[in-house]
């Protein structure tokens, strides 16, 4: 059987040359993403904004959204959004957080249930009060910071600080771009989005670490090779693995995206963007070339491991 070779053996692609394009490009994209965050904003879901989210399914025929909007609009609950969700008899109702603390949210949900009556199947009812939503957001942000910090420390122990710093810059870049993506698409930003961001962080680091591992090995073996050449060799050697792995992960994600249903749609879409597009790009075009500038030391403790000296490549 002839096996699939997606990446030919012995590629000699000059990735490092692209840093003159990739660095300004990434800087530009990051600035764009940050300004999107500030000026366009994220579509905060009820986890972080509080309020009511109700998914109903009409039992007989497609839902009459106009009529439901009129019914709910008359309750005096402020902003009410209705949206068809999947099948024509599925409706997603979002109601902004009610003023008056946690009890007021409960009063509102009772009003909605009474107004809509029993001709509906309540598939999902979520009510998040102001206290919980505030906490969830701060937990999310703190968690993200903690994860980045923890990973940084681990890399610092395992590699040199330059690697840790390089990985961190690369991964903050991933997170920033993904947040930009969430802002452009206005995907619901909720707790699962934080989970998606953390997974992207984990995956992207996974990828970066694999290449760094190779760079470290090369540094030990070829003590006199110029840095850009060495980095190029490392990226090229791991290229086949990167491509194959990302293809398999994309296959798994694609299946989740197509068949996983609405509940995890925003999660998988974000992951698809973060892991497949950004993560791969970052580890090749950002995380590796950045080591040129961070000045990875040679002959320091972390690198004087076992290995033959100055072989010919």
């Amino acid at each position, binding site marked *: *059987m002839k*096996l*699939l070779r*997606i990446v030919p*053996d*012995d590629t000699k692609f000059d990735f490092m040359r692209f840093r003159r394009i990739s660095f300004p490009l990434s800087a530009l994209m990051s600035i764009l993403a940050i300004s999107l965050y500030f000026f366009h904003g994220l579509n905060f879901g009820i986890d972080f904004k509080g309020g009511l989210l109700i998914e109903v*399914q009409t039992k007989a025929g497609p839902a009459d959204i106009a009529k439901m909007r009129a019914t709910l609009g008359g309750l005096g609950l402020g902003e009410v959004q209705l949206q068809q969700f999947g099948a024509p008899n599925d409706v997603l109702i979002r109601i902004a957080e009610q003023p008056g603390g946690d009890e007021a949210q*409960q009063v509102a949900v*009772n009003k909605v249930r009474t107004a809509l009556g029993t001709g509906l199947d*309540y*598939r*999902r*009812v*979520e009510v998040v*009060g102001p206290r*919980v939503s505030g906490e*969830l957001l701060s*937990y999310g942000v*703190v*968690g993200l910071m*903690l*994860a980045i910090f*923890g*990973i940084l420390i*681990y*890399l610092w122990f*395992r590699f040199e600080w330059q690697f840790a710093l390089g990985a961190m810059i690369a991964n903050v870049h991933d997170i920033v771009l993904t947040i930009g993506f969430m802002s452009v698409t206005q995907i619901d930003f909720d*707790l*699962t989005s*934080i*989970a998606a961001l*953390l*997974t992207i962080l*984990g*995956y992207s*680091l*996974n990828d970066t*670490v*694999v290449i760094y*591992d190779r760079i470290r090995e090369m540094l030990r073996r070829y003590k006199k090779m110029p840095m850009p050449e060495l980095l190029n060799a490392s990226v090229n*050697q*791991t290229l*086949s*693995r990167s491509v*194959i*792995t990302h293809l*398999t*992960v994309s*296959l*798994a*994600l*694609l*299946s*989740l995206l197509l*068949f*996983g*249903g609405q*509940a995890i749609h925003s*999660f998988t879409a974000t*992951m698809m963007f973060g892991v497949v597009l950004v993560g791969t790009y970052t580890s090749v075009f950002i995380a590796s070339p950045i080591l040129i500038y961070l000045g990875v030391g040679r002959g320091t403790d972390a690198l004087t491991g076992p290995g033959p000296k100055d072989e010919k490549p």
Partner: protein
Amino acid sequence: MLYFTRWKAAAIVLTAAIVCLFAAPNFIPAKVVDSWPKWAQRHIVLGLDLQGGSHILLEVDSKAVRKDMLEALRDDVRRVLRDARIGYTGLVVRGNGVEVRIREGANSGQALEKLRTLSQPLGGILSATGQRNLDITSEAGNLYRLTLTDPAIIERVRQSVDQSIQIIERRVNELGTVEPLIQREGTDRILVQVPGLQDPTRLKQLLGKTAKLDFHMVDVNVSPEQAQQGRLPPEDQLLHGAGKEASQLYVVEKRALVSGAELTDAQPGFDQRTNEPIVQFRFNTSGARKFAQATQENVGKPFAIVLDNEVISAPVIREPILGGSGQISGNFTVQSANDLAILLRAGALPAPLTIIEERTVGPGLGADSIAQGKISSYVGAAMVIIFMFLTYGLFGLFANIAVAVNVAMIFGILSLLNATLTLPGIAGIVLTVGIAVDSNVLIYERIREEVRGGRTAINAIDAGFSRALATILDSNITTFIAAAVLFYIGTGPVRGFAVTLGIGIITTVFTAFTLTRLIVAYWVRLRRPQRVPI
């Protein structure tokens, strides 16, 4: 790298097999599993998002707890000073404490000594810290300030949560639901999860009531109108009626004749004459004695049955009630009488609870989610398996076996932990398949490289494994850190995702280091290959 002693190989296969076997109870009908020993019955619990049900997060009103403590403290100060016959003025609750001014300076030494008796060392888990519940300070003009310490308030809130959990358990169990989960969250919160509950309205009604029942005399000397005009005597309070009769006002003595804490039983029933739904109750011995005495002294006068500061009814005492039992009527429906009986039997909450988060998933959505989770997992797994076979041939098959064992082990460990599987959890498993495949890709690509580097087949395989494993460890630990943080900060579904991702990483490292290596080693020994088929 390719040499395994016989016992080591056996240990690896045995470990994998046993862990996989723990997943078995999930795929065997519950009837069969029930006859197994307890330790073998452990299985995965479906999250509320998959099986449907209600998740309600309650918070103890710590302000109310503090207010109760301050009022009790004020009463204690009054009692202590009165007992010692020390004159005082201006006994008030201020801020986090109580202030009192001693009339005569000569008494102040004795007063301080008496007040100090109120300061107790904290009990419970804080007893070792030597902290006390009160700080007592004195100021010019014989002014004493007794301040509640923060640990004392926190400790009381903790106790309130513990008591509330017991009471909530009794209330929820009355609903006849399957396996409700009631647990503490943080210092002042209680999580209630009831699987299969589609409409939590009734549950919320049962949870939201403090159910503090008291019997008070109605003060017939003051009319509600007079009270509203500001002529409310200090020993009385103005309460309104319950439910539909909220506009009806009552002037009620603050002092309770008997409290609901002295009830031993409450049952719904019907009034023999009017056939209206009622609640019948029975007092314990001391409650019965107090009630008998009070009704004997007050025949012909009305008394009020007060539930959570609302008057349910205010009947006139026609004759002394000596038997210790009675009935409450007051516009009940069959269900509301039943609910009140449940609440009274379960007892009153020590402090009001507020619902701060509610998530309910209907059974329809849950079933859909399970179906979608299954389809997406099967399709994802199939695509990955085919892709791996196309890329690595025989070694791709080895990888697929390792990944299959990996997934089975995840299910085994999840069962062992009685973990909850949520929809994001299923996503975590699918992603683990990606990570698990990656570990094989790393090994195989390394072997390809070593072959290109001119090594012999067996040498290349050996070197490929030993070099790739370090990388696998490094890359998985970083992902594991992310999963651990997710677990720590996450709630509900997100935590479910973190659990499967974290377990998946552990099983991935295990299979990469042992099983994949063992399979390849066995193949090498069997075939003695001259070239590597990848």
